[in-house]
Structure formats: C-alpha cells, structure tokens
C-alpha cells in the first residue's frame, strides 16, 4: 500500500542517517535511547497548538515506519475546538479549580463540537496527510474498540467570583484502561494507528443496571501517556519549546535528563503553565509502563528522531 519506491525509501533512510541535527553534532543514527528496545512501539504525541506544523513530524513518522518501527500517533486539538465553537457562535467555557488549575468545562454542545473537530476533521486530515507520506494510517478515537476507557467525571469543583461551587454536566473522564489489543492488531497488520480523544466513559445508572458508555473529553497528553504505558513504548511528546527548562526565561537551562526522584522533583518544580501537564503525563506514562518519555520541540528537523537522539527532556 505504500507510495514509496524501494529506491526512495533507501534514499530517505540514508539521508536520515547522514543528517546532522546541527548545534551539537549529534547524529540521528538511533544512538542513546531506543537502541535496547528497537521493538518497543514509538508513541508520538503531536501538538494541537496553532504554532506547530505537523508536516515534519508526519514525514519523520514515515522514516520510522520505513525503518520497520511500530509507530502510534496521538493528537489533541483544543484550539481547533475553540475555533469551531466560535464559528458556531458559542463561547468556549473555561473554569478554575480551587487549586488554581484552569480547564475546559465540556457541556453537551462543546462535546458535540469536540467529536466533530477531533475524530472528525483533525483526525481525517492527519490520516490523509500520513497517507500522502506513504504511511498506511488508521484513525481511532477512544470510543473505537473501547480504546480509552475509565470513569466519567460529570461534576467538577470550581471557583467563580471567589466562591467554590459544584458544577454539573461536565463531559469529561479519566482514562484508566487502554485496549492495547486493538493497537497491536493494527500494528501487526502494518497499519499506523492515529489516536485521539474523546475517551469512552463508563457510568452506571445506579440500580444494578448495565454500564452506560458516553464519549467524553480527556487530555490528549494523558491519552498519549496511557497508550505508551499500555504498549510499554517510548513516548515522544512534541510541543513548541525544546523541553522542560530549569528557568523558563533562560533558554540555556534545558533539563536534558530526568532519571532520579530528585531530578523529577526538580522538573516538577521547574515546569510552568502547560508544561506542568507534560511533566504530569510523563510521570503517568512511566508509572504505566512506558520505556521512556521525551518532551521535545516539534519544530526540529525530523523532530521524532531528534527527540530520540538527545534533543529535549528525557524522563526514564
């Protein structure tokens, strides 16, 4: 099914091996990370942020697949959800917890738009983009084959005008299980799963009735972490900065490696804003069984290969 000729693949592979990544002379020959677990799947989280163009990442997925790696792509797309809500004349709603965390409140209309944008437009376009790179991608949401399941959280505790409230009707949940059989089945068939949220939340209506499943919102970084954990894979989280900085104001303070509890504490303390979610996801992935997690810049050339060869912050 691939669109590459044998010769093109060979050339791409050579170019990849010869490619100097620049500032530090590291070569992308699959050194440090991954040499010991050549067969562990590579789970790549690509960003939904406006700043990140996925084309380079998709081309790099094609390189990896051509080299015989098993790859799973995971993506979000929160800003695209907001854009579509606005086109529909709806205001995206964000709420703050008593602890100061800001998150989306996903009412029924927002959930509908979520389904339209993530498994709909973004996933279809990403799959088509990968097909154009010669990668036989198959799009999945967490509802497909019960890929991502867990309890629903329909009530959240929020602070509004300085008062704490219980706000009900949230369509959100916590991923507790991954159907790795579906991913393995597709990988064994030489397909590249392209995974996105919603997840499928389980609710029991109470009186001994059957469990009811509802598609709900879940964080895409944590979805990627759950997938990497379930597959025992290497997780590469592409974002729009080079990794976790000790001092976000100082671009020389990139933390390259997080291996000890003390280093993890330091990384957790250092992470600010959206990066706290990446660090949280990294911890969840490792606890779930992932081989390693690297947070790296999507704007690098061959960004996945770069991440796997020392560019970014690697958690092990």
């Amino acid at each position, binding site marked *: 099914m691939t669109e590459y000729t044998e010769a093109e693949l060979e050339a791409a592979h050579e170019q990849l091996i010869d490619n100097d990544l620049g500032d530090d002379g590291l070569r992308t020959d699959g050194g440090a990370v991954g040499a010991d677990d050549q067969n562990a799947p590579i789970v790549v989280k690509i960003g939904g942020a406006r700043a990140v163009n996925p084309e380079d990442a998709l081309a790099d997925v094609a390189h990896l697949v051509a080299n015989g790696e098993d790859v799973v792509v995971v993506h*979000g797309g*929160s800003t695209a*959800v907001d854009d579509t809500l606005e086109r529909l004349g709806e205001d995206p709603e964000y709420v703050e*917890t*008593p*602890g100061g*965390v800001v*998150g*989306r409140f*996903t009412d029924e209309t927002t959930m509908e738009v*979520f389904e339209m944008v993530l498994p709909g437009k973004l996933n279809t376009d990403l799959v088509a983009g990968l097909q154009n790179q010669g990668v036989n991608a198959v799009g999945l949401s967490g509802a497909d084959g019960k890929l991502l399941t867990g309890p629903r*959280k329909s*009530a*959240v*505790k929020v602070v509004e005008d300085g*008062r*704490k*409230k*219980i*706000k*009900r009707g949230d369509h*959100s*949940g*916590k991923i507790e299980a991954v159907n790795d059989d579906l991913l393995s089945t597709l990988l064994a068939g030489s397909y590249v799963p392209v995974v996105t*949220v919603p997840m499928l939340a389980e609710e029991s209506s109470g009186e001994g009735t059957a469990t009811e499943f509802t598609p*709900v*919102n*879940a*964080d*895409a970084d944590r979805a990627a972490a759950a997938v990497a954990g379930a597959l025992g894979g290497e997780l590469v989280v592409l974002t729009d900065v080079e990794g976790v900085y000790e001092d976000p104001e100082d671009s020389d303070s990139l933390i390259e490696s997080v291996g000890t509890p003390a280093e993890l504490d330091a990384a957790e303390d250092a992470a600010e804003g959206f990066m706290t979610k990446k660090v949280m996801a990294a911890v969840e992935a490792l606890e779930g069984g992932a081989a390693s997690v690297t947070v790296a810049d999507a704007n690098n050339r061959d960004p996945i290969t770069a991440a796997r060869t020392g560019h970014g912050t690697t958690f092990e």
Partner: protein
Amino acid sequence: MTECVECGADVTLHDNAEVGEILDCTTCGAELELVERNPPVLQRAPELEEDWGE
C-alpha cells in the same frame, strides 16, 4: 442559618448563596454543598479530583 450535616454546628449562608455553592463548615471543616435554597438544604459535597480533560 442552617446546620452542618457532619457535626451539627451552625453554618452561615450568604444572602445570595446559590444552589451548587460549597460552604466550608468553620467548626469541623467539612465541605457542604447547598442543594436547595428555600429552605436551605446542605449535604456533604462530593469528593472530586482537581483535574480536567483537554
């Protein structure tokens, strides 16, 4: 004025307290949710984790 469902202490309601609002019992520290307004009914607020989706 109404009573804490945990310790029985008096709990003061703001004049404009809303259904869903959480009041902290100043005596035992319990989080109480105002589930009805007139007359006021409190119940122990559900335990909810503080994190969200996408």
